[in-house]
């Protein structure tokens, strides 16, 4: 993975000391909150319901064991012993004190991490496929391109004060595991018929109060023009984005109002101009970055097992509980790997009744140890609020599962109704109208208790506590949006969303429900699905085949 050079480190260190001085001046009363707020936000420090919250960037969700241990240390030293992994592959600490914030940032800098550009109207953390560099189906590891974009966008003077925040996502496979088309710019790295590498640009997607799926703007940008094209896209947005209205300031509104064809025409014009100026980093820089992402030294397949061998060996060990413990976890939580004898292993942060995305400092350290011991010192944060060991030998899975199981980290529920994305909601967030986490807890408990999770199969349930949609409810097979109805929590149910390659936006079923009502409603719609599905159909497939009406009929009569 990428390592800072002296220039990177000097920039981050300088930023810490700059913030230390700003925070000191605020605490001494020499800065007003109006003056200080934009400065703290540029360093990822929000003020939430109960305290300051620090959002730390994890570039494209990749980190090593030492960094995860540093995150654990910060949780214990400056927070309350835990952190929250987010839908943008970041981590948030909920209880940071202003007087400690600079020290926390200094500790992060020691392990090449920071909180820069995790807030504000700038280019945020670049997200990517969490299986990058490991997935069997990818064209190439997308992370060198994500890292190039990160370096280009860090402190970019022209794009520090955009009309609104801006989110990139980079993938490199036909399958979309990163909600690519629901980002301001989604990039898919591809190969053309001549075998050349390039980038598809999808521009103008997003969730929030006006959800939109990004249209394809360019089918193939030569890879040595990636940054130039990104810059052209940003320049047109920076020039014409609606700065007069916060709710119409995202690029999706500009692309929608101009029309994708006209936006594209302007981008192409700017692109031609920029090619003549020459803004692309030298190819040697991309090559230098790519070296950091060279595949690890995978062992020969003869030194591991395949999944059939694993099953036959595990079946002989009763402690592994193949049928309802380890075996279920292997079936649910592992993902095909590019190297024979290896898989990627999902570490669920969704225990039944738990808080989605939360991990204690001890759990972080356990995960770090597993990464060091079994996964070439690599970890990923998934946008689904889970963690991932990207490269593990199938033969090591029993040992890994045993450790995870003892730590409460082996819930076998990836992509099931228990694998719920939920934003912090009204329990933590100053923007929220309703709580999200208690719904996730109760729904996972109800389905786990009834044993229906496995029967229902793949079902992506996503919950947001307000219209900003941090919980991705627009993209849930089942989505729940919390609203404020005359001072009480109310929940809108929606169906039919997807953030995958079959991307779609969910539609609202009808009038909202109270907390108990929406939980019962989720059960009702799964009943309709189970009654109507044909062999092999997922919830989303059945919904698309039979439409909304049978679900509405069951919900509202």
């Amino acid at each position, binding site marked *: 993975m990428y390592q800072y050079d002296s220039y990177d480190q000097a920039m981050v260190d300088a930023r810490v000391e700059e913030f230390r001085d700003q925070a000191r001046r605020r605490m001494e009363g020499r800065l007003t909150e109006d003056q200080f707020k934009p400065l703290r936000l540029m360093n990822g420090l929000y003020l939430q319901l109960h305290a300051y919250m620090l959002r730390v960037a994890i570039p494209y969700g990749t980190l090593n064991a030492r960094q995860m241990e540093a995150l654990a240390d910060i949780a214990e030293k400056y927070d309350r012993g835990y952190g929250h992994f987010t839908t943008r592959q970041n981590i948030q600490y909920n209880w940071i004190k202003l007087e400690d914030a600079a020290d926390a940032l200094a500790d992060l800098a020691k392990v090449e991490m920071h909180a820069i550009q995790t807030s504000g109207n700038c280019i945020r953390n670049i997200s990517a496929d969490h299986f990058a560099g490991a997935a069997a189906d990818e064209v190439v590891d997308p992370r060198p391109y994500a890292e190039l974009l990160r370096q280009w966008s860090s402190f970019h003077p022209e794009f520090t004060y955009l009309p609104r925040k801006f989110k990139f996502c980079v993938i490199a496979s036909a399958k979309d595991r990163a909600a690519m088309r629901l980002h301001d710019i989604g990039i898919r790295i591809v190969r053309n018929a001549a075998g050349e590498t390039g980038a598809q640009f999808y521009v103008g997607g997003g969730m929030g109060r006006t959800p939109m799926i990004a249209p394809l703007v360019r089918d193939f940008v030569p890879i040595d023009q990636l940054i130039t094209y990104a810059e052209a896209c940003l320049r047109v947005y920076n020039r014409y984005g609606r700065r007069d209205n916060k709710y119409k300031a995202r690029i999706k509104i500009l692309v929608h109002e101009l029309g994708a064809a006209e936006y594209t025409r302007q981008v192409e014009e700017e692109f031609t101009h920029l090619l003549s100026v020459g803004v692309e980093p030298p190819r040697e820089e991309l090559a230098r970055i790519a070296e950091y992402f060279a595949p690890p030294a995978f062992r020969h397949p003869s030194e591991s097992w395949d999944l059939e061998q694993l099953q036959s060996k595990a079946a002989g060990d009763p402690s592994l509980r193949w049928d309802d413990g380890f075996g279920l976890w292997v079936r649910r939580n592992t993902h095909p790997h590019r190297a024979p004898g290896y898989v990627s292993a999902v570490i669920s942060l969704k225990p039944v009744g738990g808080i989605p995305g939360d991990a204690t400092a001890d759990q972080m350290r356990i995960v770090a140890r597993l990464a060091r011991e079994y996964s070439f010192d690599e970890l990923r944060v998934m946008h689904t609020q889970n963690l991932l060991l990207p490269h593990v030998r199938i033969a090591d899975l029993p040992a890994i599962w045993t450790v995870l199981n003892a730590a409460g980290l082996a819930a076998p529920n990836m992509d099931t109704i228990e694998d719920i994305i939920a934003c912090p909601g009204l329990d933590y967030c100053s923007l929220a109208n309703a*709580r999200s986490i*208690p719904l996730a807890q109760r729904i996972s408990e109800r389905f786990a208790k009834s044993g229906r999770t496995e029967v229902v199969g793949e079902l992506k349930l996503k919950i947001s506590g307000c219209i900003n949609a941090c919980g991705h409810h627009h993209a849930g097979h089942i989505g729940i949006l919390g609203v404020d109805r005359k001072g009480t929590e109310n929940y809108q149910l929606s169906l039919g969303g997807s953030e995958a390659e079959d991307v779609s936006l969910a539609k609202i079923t009808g009038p909202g429900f109270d907390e108990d009502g929406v939980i019962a409603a989720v059960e009702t719609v799964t009943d309709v699905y189970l009654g109507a599905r044909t062999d092999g159909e997922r919830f989303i497939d059945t919904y698309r085949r039979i439409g909304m009406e049978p679900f509405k009929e069951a919900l509202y009569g």
Partner: protein
Amino acid sequence: MKILTGNDLRSGAVVWWNGSGWSLFVDDAVDAGDDAEEILAREEAARRVNVPYAIDASIDAAGHVRPAHIKDRVRALGPTVRRDLAVPTADKTGWDWVI
């Protein structure tokens, strides 16, 4: 009644105006009445509390202060899903009044 709340500048903790300073406990909040704007302006200038503001509240039959809006009731005790991290309270009714 009108009570005043905000977040402590240094720690970020939720605090309530108790008539002479800021308390961590909502039950210490007092009715700021017609003085609310003056107190807010003074405290804003003192820069001990971040963006203090006035909210509606009531006193229940047992004498406990109850913020009117759900958001402020959640602020009063802490995340409903992490009651182990709650602000300590002498209020034996626990969390029943929050949601």
